[in-house]
């Protein structure tokens, strides 16, 4: 901190060194090499500066002592010209586009050639108008090493993102999202409804660019929250000049993306026959069998397809209007959007309205003001998921086909015994209510002041405000509300998060000839996030379906409100030294303090060093025409992960363990006053090559990152009264390679073919655990020397052909078989839920106005567990529920060879218990995007007086290939790769139109 104050003081001193003198006015015009006037070029001399207008002209009043002017503009080489007379004409030459590209990084921008880190960018054209409800879903396949996985097809569902593997076992593995400088609260903030996604209120069409920071050099400036990678989002700005209006629309429909006939629910005759067989096999008397079959609806004559009844083809649409423009002093950008998407099952839908305003104003030559406000409102209905009786997908597979959802008179069938004790979800989706309304505002106000030509101070206040209103009504007649004669909930959640950032940027040439440049930045930031939660529930409703708000209930059973907060204060500094654009050395340092850690360890220091060698700028390379870029990069550093609960460090006694409606307390948290950050130490080596006039561009990265002092949920003996506590212990590594390839095989006047390919391979290894002991985690194990998310299961050994018994391997040698479900000791590691390789392969063809793009997303080498298979494929377990077609492969006669055991009503041995039978290979390749488009030619456009018009038709997730033919549901099931009867992931077909005026 003292260092920072010193710097502030010295910069202030420097500013005093400038003196006022007599002035003169220099005028001129700036054009490109073809002679076209260039607007918006920054013209600077001494402390004075301006920019060119639409005709490329400028006029600048200068002290006589200033001898030269410098001209700079994005995409052009910066030019310095000595002043001769009072009028100058200047021609600027274009830079190599790829190298001069400015990349948004932490707390500022950098020229790509200055980068020492592993940074990937995604630009607006790849983000706009996609049929996905939030930007995190759009990122799938777009960045090497960024794994974005859905677990549900519910519009607005939360999405899991892992960058370069999972770096933590128990703390968060989600990256930090920074939107226009504000570190956001992201993720699923729903407390009552099934799923939500705070990013779903952000309209992807408002995004200009996304930068993904993947290594120490780029991440560490974000200190204690950078370990899972940082995703920096910049929203769109207006451009000076003629006001542009743009209209985008897309309409279409979606359907289930993947369906396996082997996992089709049985029809009534199949179910009844199978159940009879199972009852006989269980040894029931004929009278009992007949009665049971009748009770299960076997004589009802009904054959009802619940899956058809709960799934549907769903409409989808989005409309966006933007307007931008301005002059040299002020620019604006305005947008409004509407996005509506229905899921593939009943009452699964989302509708978003969003708007964005950005204003920039040059108060004077030194002071810029920037204002930005981005708001979105999402209304969402999501059905229950997993084992909830009200989950429509569960009912599709569990409800017996022998009973209809409707009575003969058309009313809903609400007879509990006909529904196997489950719920008629078709009725519930009509009469129960499940609403989520989510409103977000993200805004910032900033000012930057150029103290000196090379010294800039910036202060920015940003906030991120999210409100979630969740309402639910469960009717008194049937379903979850029946037991309490109806119940209704109203939950209110608010997150208000503010951040104040102050930075000082300094650029200085350290040698007279300009060969050695220094860019440095120091900053201070404070942040506070406050969560506010109100919950109420009322029960005992009047016997009607019309009164659905808690106001109508008679027995208030939940009345709760509380808050949860965290704070951060940080000081940081970064810099890079660039010698002749050949050698770049960078460094960063950040000191974070956080309320989330114990009094003994509130502060942590994070840093990075990086270097790059732009070989192509060496003198000896100037004659090598083949290679336009050759860059070697390397970085190492330390950053952290603070992704745990706000008060996890504190030993606590909680309240709410009430008895007879009197207050009761209970131990809440073991706590640890020395709890602190989890450390991540990434090492990255990279190579960027462009050859053949940038027709072939390759980026290659190798990385190894080690996570230490893991914030681990350490398992405790249950006899202590606790099951786990968070401690800093254990370590883990992620090692991998990433390749990004961009090739233009054909490029003629009319035809271009572009190939984009990215590939990532990551290998996770747990290096140490407390006492080296395994940590059980459901069907998985956390074991030293192995990868995280390893399945640890008993090995299924098929069916005994003699009697149809299920067999398992008795021990880990996988030799002896047994029909008794073997002990835990027989479990072995049987695959991993994270893929070994993933990425995408995209081909784009442009012929005149036509374009064709197809993108394949691939995910290889993982395994997927069918969590609910025991019920619909358990050889009789849960006999009152329906089964899937694969169950018909059961053993029926001696000598028969099959992998599904004899069907015994109630269950055959422990076949339904976890084993490798329910594990499938997870490899899949999916046609993520297929798009055919046409742009109207210029000649037509000018007649119609419009700037641009583009028509297209698109298919998303049109085709899915799976390696394992026994893949029960969509292969995309979250990073945990376990099915959970979620809304089916959709395939979507849309047509769209983009017009610019």
């Amino acid at each position: 901190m003292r260092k920072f104050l010193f710097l502030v003081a010295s910069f202030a001193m420097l500013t005093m060194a400038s003196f006022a003198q007599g002035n003169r006015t220099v005028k001129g015009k700036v054009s490109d090499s073809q002679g076209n006037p260039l607007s918006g070029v920054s013209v600077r001399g001494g402390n004075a500066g301006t920019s060119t207008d639409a005709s490329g002209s400028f006029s600048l009043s200068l002290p006589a002592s200033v001898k030269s002017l410098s001209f700079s503009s994005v995409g052009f080489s910066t030019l310095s010209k000595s002043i001769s007379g009072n009028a100058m004409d200047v021609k600027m030459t274009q830079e190599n586009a790829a190298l001069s590209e400015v990349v948004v990084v932490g707390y500022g921008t950098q020229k790509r050639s200055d980068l020492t880190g592993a940074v990937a960018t995604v630009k607006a054209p790849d983000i706009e108008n996609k049929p996905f409800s939030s930007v995190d879903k759009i990122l799938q396949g777009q960045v090497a090493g960024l794994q974005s996985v859905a677990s549900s097809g519910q519009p607005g569902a939360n999405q899991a993102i892992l960058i370069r593997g999972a770096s933590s076992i128990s703390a968060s593995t989600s990256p930090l999202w920074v939107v226009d400088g504000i570190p956001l609260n992201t993720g699923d903030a729903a407390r009552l409804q099934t799923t939500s996604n705070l990013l779903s209120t952000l309209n992807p069409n408002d995004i200009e660019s996304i930068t993904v920071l993947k290594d120490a050099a780029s991440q560490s400036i974000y200190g204690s929250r950078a370990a899972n990678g940082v995703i920096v989002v910049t929203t769109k700005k207006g451009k000076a000049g003629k006001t542009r209006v743009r209209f985008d629309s897309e309409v279409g429909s979606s359907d289930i993306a993947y369906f396996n006939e082997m996992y089709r629910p049985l029809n009534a005759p199949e179910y009844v026959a199978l159940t009879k067989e199972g009852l006989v096999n269980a040894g029931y008397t004929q009278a009992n069998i007949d009665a049971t079959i009748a009770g299960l609806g076997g004589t009802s004559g009904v054959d009802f397809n619940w899956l058809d009844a709960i799934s549907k083809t769903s409409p989808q649409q989005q409309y966006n209007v933007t307007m931008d423009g301005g002059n040299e002093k002020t620019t604006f950008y305005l947008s409004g959007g509407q996005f509506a998407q229905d899921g593939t099952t009943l009452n699964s839908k989302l509708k978003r309205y969003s708007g964005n305003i950005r204003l920039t104003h040059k108060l004077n030559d030194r002071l810029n003001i920037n204002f930005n406000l981005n708001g979105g409102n999402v209304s969402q209905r999501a059905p229950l998921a997993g084992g909830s009786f009200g989950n429509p997908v569960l009912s599709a597979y569990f409800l017996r086909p022998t009973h209809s959802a409707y009575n003969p008179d058309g009313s809903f069938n609400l007879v509990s015994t006909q529904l196997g004790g489950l719920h008629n979800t078709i009725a519930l989706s009509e009469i129960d209510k499940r609403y989520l309304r989510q409103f977000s505002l993200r805004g910032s106000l900033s000012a930057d002041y150029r103290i000196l030509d090379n010294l800039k101070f910036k202060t920015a206040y940003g906030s991120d405000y999210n409100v979630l209103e969740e309402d639910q009504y469960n009717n008194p007649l049937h379903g979850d509300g029946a037991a309490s004669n109806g119940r209704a909930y109203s939950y209110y959640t608010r997150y208000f998060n503010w951040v104040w950032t102050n930075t000082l940027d300094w650029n200085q040439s350290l040698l007279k000839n300009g060969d050695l440049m220094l860019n440095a930045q120091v900053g201070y930031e404070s942040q506070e996030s406050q969560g506010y939660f109100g919950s109420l529930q009322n029960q005992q409703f009047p016997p009607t379906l019309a009164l659905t708000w808690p106001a109508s209930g008679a027995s208030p059973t939940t009345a709760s409100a509380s808050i949860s907060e965290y704070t951060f204060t940080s000081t940081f500094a970064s810099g890079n030294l660039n010698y002749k654009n050949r050698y770049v050395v960078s460094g960063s340092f950040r000191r974070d303090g956080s309320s989330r850690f114990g009094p003994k360890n509130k502060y942590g220091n994070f840093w990075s060093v990086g270097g790059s060698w732009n070989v192509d700028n060496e003198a000896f390379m100037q004659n090598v025409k083949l290679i336009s870029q050759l860059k070697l990069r390397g970085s190492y550093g330390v950053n952290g992960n603070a992704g745990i609960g706000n008060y996890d460090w504190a030993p606590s006694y909680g309240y709410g363990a009430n008895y007879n409606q009197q207050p009761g307390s209970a131990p809440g948290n073991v706590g640890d006053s020395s709890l602190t950050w989890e450390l991540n130490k990434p090492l990255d080596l990279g190579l960027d090559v462009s050859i053949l006039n940038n027709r072939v561009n390759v980026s290659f990265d190798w990385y190894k990152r080690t996570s230490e002092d893991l914030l681990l949920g350490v398992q405790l003996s249950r006899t202590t009264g606790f099951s786990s506590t968070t401690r800093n212990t254990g370590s883990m590594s992620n090692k991998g390679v990433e390749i990004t390839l961009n090739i233009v095989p054909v490029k003629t006047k009319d035809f271009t073919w572009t190939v984009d390919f990215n590939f990532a391979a990551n290998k996770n290894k747990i290096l140490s655990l407390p006492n080296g002991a395994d940590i059980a985690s459901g069907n998985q194990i956390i074991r030293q020397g192995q990868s995280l998310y390893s399945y640890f299961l008993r090995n299924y050994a098929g069916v005994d052909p003699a009697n149809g018994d299920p067999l398992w391997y008795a021990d880990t040698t996988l030799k002896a078989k047994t029909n008794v479900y073997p002990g835990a000791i027989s479990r072995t590691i049987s695959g991993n839920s994270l893929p070994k390789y993933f990425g995408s392969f995209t081909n784009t063809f442009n012929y005149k106005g036509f374009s064709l793009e197809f993108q394949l997303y691939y995910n290889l080498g993982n395994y997927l567990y069918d969590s609910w298979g025991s019920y619909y494929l358990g050889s009789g377990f849960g006999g009152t529920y329906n089964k899937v077609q694969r169950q018909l492969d059961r053993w029926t006669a001696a000598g028969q060879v099959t992998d599904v055991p004899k069907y015994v009503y109630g269950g055959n041995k422990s076949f339904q218990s976890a084993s490798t039978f329910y594990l499938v290979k997870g490899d899949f390749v999916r046609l993520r995007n297929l798009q055919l488009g046409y742009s109207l030619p210029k000649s037509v456009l000018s007649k119609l007086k419009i700037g641009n018009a583009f028509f297209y038709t698109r298919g998303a997730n049109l085709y899915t290939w799976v390696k394992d033919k026994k893949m029960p549901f969509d292969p995309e099931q979250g990073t945990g790769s376990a099915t959970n009867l979620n809304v089916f992931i959709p395939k979507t077909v849309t047509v769209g139109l983009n017009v610019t005026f």
Partner: protein
Amino acid sequence: MNQIKKPIWILLLAGVATFSSCKKEFLELNSPTSLVPAIALGKEADLLVALRGAYASLRNVDHMGRTVPMIGDIMADNAYQSTLNTNRYTLFNNYTYNTLDGNVAGLWSAAYNTILRCNNVINASITPNTANVDQYKGEAYAVRALCYFNLVRYFSKPFSEDPNALGVPIVTTYNPDDKPTRAKVSDVYNLMIADLEKAYSLMTKYTNSSQFSKYAAKGLQAKVYLTKGDNANALTAALDVINNGGFTALTAATHASYWANSTVTTSKLETLMEVSSDATANLAFDALSYLYSQAGNYGDYLATDDLISKYAATDVRLGLYPRVTRSGVQVFSVNKYPVISGDYSDTKVLRLSEMYLIAAEASVSTNETNAKTYLNFITSRRNATAITSTGATLRNDIIQERRKELAFEGDRYMDMLRLKVDVVRGANYPVAARSFPVSNFRRQLPLPQSELDANANIRSQQNPGY
């Protein structure tokens, strides 16, 4: 210098000011909904609040809330799973549970969680040590004994079979890093008896039917002694409750209304101790009542034909088992826990009637006349046939009367364990699950895998067979 305008200085000063505003307090945030343990257990009044937390945890679905009262009858011959069911406790109906079973792990964790809450009350040093403090600590001792009683009976060989067999870990102080091993069965019994003795001597108050009182603790001690096979002490303890407890006996006239009531009482009618569920704190769909009641959408478990056949036609208790049609079959439903909404039915832990049954059983080997007197105290109040038998028949009649009186209260299987009798079930159960002799390893539940995984010291002490 003139060119440097004021705003920049203001901004710079503001920047500097942020450092001074970086006060320590900005980073010091405490949980708004919890207290540090020292404060939460600091005063007499806090102790009462912590004690309620212990009682509340008894309501856990896998402890007294549902699993213990359910499987105590399912694993025996009273309750069976209807073929039309929601798949709850199937593995107990069929004796096919294993180390990964959720109910087994739940029972283990829930009981030890309650033990921790009790330990914190018992070990709190509160000054002055008032009568209230003693009362609360006394209640905590009794709750702790109840937890150990359930643990040792389900996870260990019965005391009557082998007092030196592996019991369950004894935990009486808070240590989150403790990895204890199993104590001997006899050590667990010694702890329970000592705890209940302390509870008896510390307590002075009767609060209501859902909290332990002096005589409820004594009643539990009587049951512990009986289970241990110490008839003399069981008799003394049971008679202490009968003669000095001040509880009134259930009669044929009050029987139906007693079981229909779901509220906590202070009338001292019959109930020595029950675990309360009320209109806001209850298990909703997971409540015990939901699995028996035919009025909701579960009603999975029914009374066996064998049990029903044991009641005389005049017996008022038959009224609790109405005949219904389920899945097309005429069956006997269970109506002991009828309330499935609002103030849910409570779980009975101990009743005065059981004290008479304990007294009868504990005295049968020494004084059959007394035994019959105690026994017929019950039969006469149920409109049942009076028992006049002698010798081994009388002993069996006493056990059968226990079965009839305490059915669906989680007691029957416990009797079969302590009396070392084979579980023999009728045609209501699947063919493969009708006979479980004393030698069957599944009569003891497996130690849950989660415990073995977290506690290396206990790993080698898994029950045989799993």
